[in-house]
């Protein structure tokens, strides 16, 4: 019976020690890899778990992420104050992106209210590009101001009370500053 007990004890110890020892051996050159998945090491630029280069889907998705690019010129109806400005966005993820709601107030220099903006619900398949059409209303004076700034290439606009709903997640941001470069397509 002692032999059985000893054998079972040795078995228990081996079951615990072997995987831990194996893990320590595999990650002996990269101890941080024990707690940090390879995908996040790629994001941090650390390469693969054994020092070799590897690229996970997540790191590829993040590296391929680009801000929405403005398409053409914004359209404005002076009679109604309505505008529309299309943007092209490519989904870098391996899952569909669904934007259910986006709205914000547009403010100019010194937080001067200019109007509002929103987009229609949109679904973009993995790897596909979609047209995000930003629409809203702007006053004529706001248009004049923005047009002058746009021509000079120094568009000074920010968004306030931004509300976004996508993928079941709701985000409310008090203010996003200086999105002029996004609108002009500049850097």
């Amino acid at each position, binding site marked *: *019976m002692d032999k*059985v007990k000893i054998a*079972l004890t040795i078995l228990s110890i081996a079951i615990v020690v*072997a*995987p831990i020892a194996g893990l320590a051996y595999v990650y002996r050159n990269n101890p941080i890899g024990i707690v940090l*998945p390879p*995908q996040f090491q790629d994001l941090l630029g650390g390469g693969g778990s054994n020092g070799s280069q590897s690229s996970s889907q997540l790191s590829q998705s993040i590296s391929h992420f680009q801000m929405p690019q403005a398409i053409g010129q914004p359209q404005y109806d002076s009679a109604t104050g309505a505008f529309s400005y299309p943007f092209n966005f490519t989904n870098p993820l391996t899952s569909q992106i669904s934007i259910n709601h986006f709205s914000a107030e547009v403010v100019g220099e010194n937080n001067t209210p200019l109007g509002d903006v929103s987009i229609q619900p949109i679904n973009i398949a993995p790897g596909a590009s979609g047209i995000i059409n930003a629409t809203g209303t702007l006053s004529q004076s706001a248009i004049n101001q923005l047009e002058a700034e746009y021509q000079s290439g120094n568009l000074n606009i920010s968004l306030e009370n931004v509300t976004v709903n996508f*993928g*079941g997640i709701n985000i*409310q941001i008090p203010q996003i500053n200086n999105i002029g470069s996004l609108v002009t397509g500049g850097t």
Partner: protein
Amino acid sequence: MLVISLFEPWWQLTIGQDFIRINASPIYTNFGLFGDQFTIPLIWALNLITILTFTACGLVMLIYSLVPTKPYAKQLLGFSWKKPLYTVVSFIVLLVVIVLVAGHFGVNIPLNGSATATIPGSWTSGATVSALVSGSFQLSFYFAIAGAALCLAARLYHGHILQPLIKPETIANPTASAATEGLS
């Protein structure tokens, strides 16, 4: 139980519309972010320990079932019946602790059901982020409970029914018995 747990987690947490998914079990734990699946190597090693432990327990329990009246049967049973029960209890306790800690920081994580969790603004630079969070125990978890219960039942069966059937002379020291017989 082990086979089912390899393919289905014991507990699953979904944030948003599959924006983030956490599949948790002592057998296999992985995380999903933006559709990409990943595991933490340390947790993977712990999962492997659990898999090996359950496999050993199953084999030992099988051997015990073939020789329940042998003197070493109790040791075989003692090795195998506790571990599934301890694993299930430990898993539940760990989940409860995580939920309580998250609740302490203002993040509501439901163990079973859905709720809206809001991340404190201090964590998100003033932005308010809220999401539908759904937690659920899967079928494999209930199989695990059933397996642990059966192991406990085996222990009770051995103690109350089988133990009296084991002959006393087989439990006593066989060398002492032989010496007594020689003197007489």
